Structures are given as structure tokens and as C-alpha cells.
């Protein structure tokens, strides 16, 4: 497809953000062809790097005037293609809107621009004894704006919830270019819960330009345990026992044998025996006087499921080592194959053992390499399929296996995404979970904000509106070939 941008649009966008913040040459656009979903790259018409809400609003109005769609983007770490430039769109990259505007430590509130990096916010407020609780695996690079778009989770979702539990108010540029504010500093409004509807809407309702976020007290005490099991099913059963016991750990994460072996062969090596069938990392936090008895309970429950050994981190260094076995997993998987398809689905926690067996069966049948790292406490599985996309046959098997995994999860009462979002990747699988009647109110919500679908077209649910490549009005554009 010939990607072209109307010169008149490029001229106007350049005037809005300055030439250094308007990228349109082929080499500049290459890095923006996809987010963390690399399977279907799409080159944007241009990439804009605004610094203010006013610039974002002007970009939106310029795009509208030229009947060009636009797609918001944070750091591009999303895994479902939510930031892909569908429909020959312009990308609006918010990473330069990266200022922490206010910290109200006493009320545990911060006001931030969307490009603030998740981990940097926590670092900046640590001296107040506070942190920003959502902790997606990409937290060293992902942005708060992206977290809001995807309702990002992370290992500590089990206790602290997902991003939606930590957003109080938003400023957003609507798809018509108007700037609107939603919510307030107490996180409660008397009308419709706009903030609740916007968080997780994957940038299809508008572009968030400021967020008021809730901060959380750093827990007084933390205990991290690493339990080694002979197989992943036993580790899952131990998770079920912990849930039933009434304890609420901050995190319960499982890493399977193939992943352990990849980690131990990599720079992330954590000293886990490669004979281990699975590792269960459990983190408890809260009042230090409670933690000893909670650790004792966890030990008992894990041993009841045949846990081989269980270690308690003695210090921060050891805690970091335990977590390296989890957080280094995706990097280590690069040793297994050139490409990685990170799946994301959720099942009832009691169904984890059977669904993992089913996932293994599916991948074995399709002759695929599978590695599992997942948020066991939430029932949020991440079957990671290692493959080489240059092999068309293998790629086809990867896609078929992915579909079967989703079907299997839905069949046991699960859903097709727990934290990565629907984006492009799973849009055509929504029917597994929802009927057309279930989807109709979703269209009504989106159309209330984004009636002609110009804002992040084709994500979550299909868009019916034409954009520049199919809009008859676009034929007369003074198009300029890229490059």
C-alpha cells in the first residue's frame, strides 16, 4: 500500500508542534510501525510529539479537517496492537508530555502528564513513603497514559487492583478537538462514571492529556517467598489453597520449567534449579507483626501440595533475585526463538490446573514451543509461544493455537484479556465472550465520544467509518509519497 500524507496536513502539523516534533520521513517512521504486537506492522502517515494539551487539541482538529484518523500512543509497549496506525492514521505520541505537575503527599494524590513513565513516578514520590501501585512488567518504560488506555495490571494487581483503581480524574482531548475534564480529586462524581469508562478504552474515546492519580503508602513490611514445585499444576493448586485460606498476598506468580531454564541460561539467572517443574513467587506485605504467621501459613499450604522447597528472602538483594526469575522471563525467552507471542487470558482460579494442561496439549499438538509465566493469583495466564515468524507454516500454527487457547479459556468461564487489552489482536475474538447484543452498548458508548470513529479506528470493536484511504473526499489530496 502506498502510504501518503497530505502535504497540507503535514504543513499544518509542523506549524503546531515544530519541525523537530513532526516525523514523516520513512526512516523516522520505521520505529512506529507497531507496538509490542509485532505481527501486523502498519506505518503511520506521520508521528507527532506534542508537549501540551493545546498542541494535542490542535493536532486533532487538523486531522479532522483533513479527514485523517489519529491514534494515541504512549511508549509503545502495549501487546495487543492498540497503538498500531490503522486506517493510515497519524500517531500522536505523548511521551514528551512527561511532567509530574503536582504531588499532594498528605492527600496521596499526584497530577501527571500522560507521558510520565510508570516507575519514574514511584521513584519521584518514594521519599514521601508513597508509590503508584499499578506495576506492569514494562513499568521501567511504559507511561501512565498507556496504563490508563489499557487499564494495565501487573504482578501486584492481586492486592492493589488495576490502573482503574488508581485514577481519580482525567483531562482528555475528545475526538472533536474539545478539551474536557472528568472526575475530581476525591475520585467520586455524582453523574456517570466517565473516568471508569475511559480507563481501559484503549484510546478510542479520546486522548488523555492529564491524569490525577491515587498514590498508595509503601507497606511497612514485605516478605517474599519462592516455592519450588515438581510441576506447574501442583503450583496452581497451592495458589487455590492460599486463596481459600483467606490470605490476600500482594502477588502470586508462577514461572514454568521451560522459562526457568531460559532464565538460568541468561543474564537474568536467579539460581533456580533447572530441574524445578515450576516456581511460585508469593509476596506478602502490610503490618510487619502479621507477616510471620502469614509466612507460616503459606509454607503449610505449599507443602500440602508437594512443594519441594520454599525460601524466604532474607534481604532486599535476595528479594530482587527472586523477582528476577519473574521479571527477567520475557527477556530470557529471546534465547528460545526470534519471536514471542505473549498471550493473555483469564480463567477462574480454580480452573488453572486444567487450563494449563489444555494449553500444553494445544501447543504440543501444533508443535510449538510454549513457556508459561503468569499472574496465578488472578487466574491471569500468559502462554508465551516462541516461534520464528519468517516460517509461514509455523506462524499459521501459532495463530491457530492462540485461537484454541482463547476458546479453551472462555469454555471454562474465562475471558480473552486480563491486562493487555483487545486492540487489534483480539478484536475478532470478542464474539467468543460477547453476543452482538452484548456489543451493542459498547458501540453506543464509543459513538457518544467518537461518532465517526476517527480516534484510534478499528480497535476493540470494528469501526464502520471510512478514513482517508477509503473516503471519497480524500481523493483530491495533494498527497506526498513518504521518504
Amino acid at each position, binding site marked *: 500500500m502506498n502510504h501518503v500524507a497530505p502535504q497540507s496536513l503535514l504543513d499544518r502539523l509542523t506549524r503546531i508542534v515544530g519541525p523537530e516534533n513532526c516525523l514523516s520521513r520513512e526512516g523516522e517512521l520505521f520505529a512506529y510501525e507497531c507496538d509490542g504486537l509485532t505481527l501486523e506492522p502498519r506505518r503511520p502517515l506521520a508521528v507527532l510529539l506534542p508537549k501540551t494539551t493545546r498542541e494535542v487539541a490542535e493536532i486533532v482538529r487538523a486531522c479532522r479537517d483533513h479527514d485523517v484518523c489519529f491514534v494515541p500512543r504512549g511508549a509503545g509497549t502495549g501487546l495487543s496492537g492498540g497503538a498500531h496506525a490503522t486506517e493510515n492514521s497519524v500517531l500522536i505520541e505523548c511521551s514528551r508530555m512527561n511532567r509530574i505537575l503536582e504531588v499532594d503527599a498528605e492527600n496521596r494524590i499526584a497530577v501527571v502528564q500522560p507521558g510520565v513513565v510508570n516507575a519514574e513516578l514511584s521513584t519521584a514520590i518514594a521519599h514521601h513513603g508513597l508509590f503508584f501501585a499499578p506495576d506492569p512488567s514494562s513499568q521501567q518504560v511504559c507511561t501512565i497514559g498507556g496504563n490508563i488506555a489499557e487499564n494495565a495490571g501487573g504482578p501486584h494487581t492481586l492486592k492493589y487492583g488495576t490502573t482503574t483503581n488508581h485514577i481519580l480524574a482525567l483531562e482528555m482531548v475528545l475526538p472533536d478537538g474539545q478539551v474536557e475534564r472528568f472526575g475530581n480529586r476525591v475520585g467520586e462524581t455524582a453523574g456517570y462514571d466517565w473516568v*471508569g469508562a475511559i*480507563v481501559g478504552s484503549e484510546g478510542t474515546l479520546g486522548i488523555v492529556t492529564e491524569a490525577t492519580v491515587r498514590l498508595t503508602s509503601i507497606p511497612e513490611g514485605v516478605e517474599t517467598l519462592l516455592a519450588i514445585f515438581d510441576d506447574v499444576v501442583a503450583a496452581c493448586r497451592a495458589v487455590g489453597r492460599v486463596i*481459600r485460606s*483467606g490470605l490476600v498476598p500482594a502477588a502470586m506468580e508462577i514461572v514454568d520449567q521451560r522459562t526457568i531454564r531460559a532464565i538460568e541460561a541468561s543474564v537474568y539467572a536467579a539460581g533456580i534449579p533447572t530441574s524445578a517443574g515450576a516456581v511460585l513467587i508469593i509476596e506478602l506485605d502490610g503490618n510487619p507483626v*502479621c507477616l510471620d504467621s502469614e509466612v507460616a501459613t503459606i509454607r503449610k499450604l505449599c507443602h500440602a501440595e508437594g512443594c519441594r522447597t520454599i525460601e524466604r528472602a532474607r534481604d532486599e538483594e535476595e528479594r530482587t533475585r527472586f523477582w528476577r526469575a519473574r521479571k527477567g522471563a520475557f527477556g530470557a525467552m529471546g534465547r528460545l526463538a526470534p519471536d514471542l507471542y505473549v498471550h493473555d487470558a483469564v480463567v*477462574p482460579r480454580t480452573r488453572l490446573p486444567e487450563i494449563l494442561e489444555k494449553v500444553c496439549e494445544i501447543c504440543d499438538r501444533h508443535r510449538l514451543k510454549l513457556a508459561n509465566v503468569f499472574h496465578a493469583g488472578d487466574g491471569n495466564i500468559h502462554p508465551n509461544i516462541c516461534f520464528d515468524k519468517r516460517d509461514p507454516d509455523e506462524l499459521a500454527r501459532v495463530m491457530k493455537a492462540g485461537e484454541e487457547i482463547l476458546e479453551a479459556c472462555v469454555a471454562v468461564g474465562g*475471558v480473552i484479556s486480563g491486562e493487555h487489552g483487545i486492540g487489534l489482536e483480539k478484536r475478532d475474538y470478542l464474539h467468543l465472550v460477547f453476543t452482538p447484543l452484548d456489543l451493542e452498548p459498547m458501540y453506543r458508548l464509543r459513538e*457518544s465520544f467518537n461518532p465517526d470513529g476517527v480516534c484510534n479506528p478499528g480497535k476493540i470493536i470494528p469501526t464502520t467509518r471510512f478514513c482517508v484511504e477509503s473516503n471519497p473526499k480524500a481523493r483530491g489530496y495533494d498527497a506526498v509519497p513518504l521518504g
Partner: protein
Amino acid sequence: MSDIACIPDSKPCRIQIPGALVEQHYEPTTPEEVGAILAEATEKKTGLLISGGRTRLHWANPARDISRGLSLVGLAGVDQFEPEEGVLHAAAGTPVREIRALVAAEGWELPLDSPGERSTVGGTVASAVVGPRAHAFGRVADAILGLDVVGADGAVSKTGGRVVKNVTGYDLAKLYCGSFGTLVVVTGAWLRLRPKPAIRRVLSARPEASRANFEACRALGRLASVRALVWNQDPGSAFADVVLELGGSEEGVTHDRDRIAAVLEIEEAASNRIDVLRDQRAEMGREDVVLRARVIGTECEKLARAILELGLHVSIDPALGVVHARGTLDDVKSLLAIRERARTQGGLAIFEVLPDAWRTQLDVFDEAIGTESLRLTLKKRFDPAGILNPGRFVGSL
């Protein structure tokens, strides 16, 4: 076709709500019957009063063109409860107190703290009403995993699911929760449970009503085992009545009790004391005015003091920044001044009870300024004939 639901006969029952007297009510027993009623109402443009346990019908702007009621109490019962999973599914008309008892027997608790004996799941979801335990439980929306709903066109649909983590599609449950039945009618909900605390203790104190003591109490709200903290004060009183509910492990509760004892002169209180205070807040007394205001924590004491100076009794959740107030006011300007003060302090004020004459001069609800156009657009798309609780919600929607 035999599978098309019939509209059940309506039953006589006189219910006075702000702006209307509703004398005939439908009591469907299936979502399909709800759908048939709504489809016909949309076709005939018949405004409906949607109700559950009828505990908060007064909490509204004056109704507009409501001629019939639609009660959800006929859809009741917990049809799925999974103690291993900590989730359950209940029909909208199920009383919240029944679910509390059911799950407690299996070591769980329902994180909904709606007041009153007759509160239902559907009413709690529609109004998003919380109690003092919101400090531990969070918002109503946080307990919802998925909802079954019927649209104004009669279409039966669902949103969300039954798992504890889910970003599959738009989060419509957030939109429906607190929408006072103006977008859809909720017929059922998947709810997330919390482990019941191993032990629970209730403490009371009667400190001098000073700013320093208030702030000390507010700080106690940050202790891990404090589930609820209420500060009650009468106008002109030099003292406040403080009640704390603690829950968790024995070690944690004992530890926090000692910390509290270092700040307040405490004694043990009845185990249901927080429930009693919660329900008192919701009672329809003889007061002219009942309101609920919320501000950021550091401004809570100042707001409460201003309200006390107007002669109202206050019941405060200091850790949440919530001030419940009731009493008599001379004029509507005082009420609006409270709202303005709450707004400038980052929050809002909702008027639950007020004289009829005032109800037409202000909006009972307090939506953020500027979202009116979106609100009208959304309402039009979900309920084009305007049959769902017309006139009663924010902006007389």
C-alpha cells in the same frame, strides 16, 4: 412464539416520589419479562420508575412523566456461589443482607456496605451507595465483576464476566454503576468477595472535638486493620463520638488497637455499632435536609466545622473525607454554599433529602461541570425515548 416473554400484569401500590405519585408497578420475575416491559415502554414512550428495595427513591430530582413502576424485587436469589473462587452471582432484587449471611458461613464477606435492611444488589449497583466500610471495601464498582442488564429497547445483554481481572471490551459496568437506572436496568451481578477477617473488634471513644483530635483520628484511619472510622458530632457540642471497626489477624488487630489506645481513650463497643451508625445515616427522619459531601482529606475538618456552624449534625468518615449532615436550614443558599465549598475543596455535595420547594431550585446531584453534552448524548443513545427514571438523575436527565 412461545419464548417471547409476556408483560406481567401491573400491581397497585402507591409510591410517592419527588415530583410524582406512582400507583401501578410491574414486578417481573425474569430478565425477558423486564425486556418485554421496557420494549413496550419505549414504543409507547411511557416513563418508568425503576426500583429495588425502595430505600433511596427520595434521593432524586423531581420525576418527569413517570406513570408506572418497574420493581426488580421479583428477580431475587443467589444462583451461583463459588466459595473456592470467592465470587457469586445474584439477581438484582436479592437483599444485600441475605448475601452477607450466606457468604459469611463460608469465610467470605460481601464488600457492599449499603445501608438498610431492604437494600438490594440492583439498588446498590444503581446508586453506588457506600457505607463507612468503603474505607476497606472501596467503591461499589470495585466489587462488580460483571452485570446482566436489559436495555431500554428490551435487549438482554451482559458486560464484564465472572473472573477477578478483565479488560475484555469497554468497562460498561463502571458506566452502569451509579447511573441510577437511567441507562439500563440491572437484572443480575457477578460479585467479588473478600476474605472475612479472622477477628473483628469495635472500639469507641469520646474525644474533645478539636481539629487536632480530628486529624489524629484521620491518621488512625491509615492503620492496616481499620475497616471503618466514624466521627459523629452535634452542633455546639464540645465532644465527638468516635467509633472504629478493626479487622484482620489477631496480631494485626491487637497491634493497631494499641496504637489507637495511645491516641484515644477507647473502650469496646457493640459489634454491630458501625452497622447501626450506617443505617442511621440513611434513615428518613424529620429533618428538612440530609446531605452527603466529600472533599480531600485535609479539608474535611474545615468543611465539617462550617456545616456544624449552620446547626446541622454531622457524621463523618474522616479517612474518606466524607461528611454526612442532617438537620434544618433556613434557606437554600446555605445548602448551595456547602456545595460550592465542597467543589472548591476538590469534591462534591449530594442532597439526599430537602424541602420540595428547594428541589426545583437546584440539582440534587452534583456532576462535574462541563460534561453535560456528553451526558445527553450518551443518554440519547441508550434510552432514546427517555423511559428510564426520567427527570430523576443528574441534570434532570
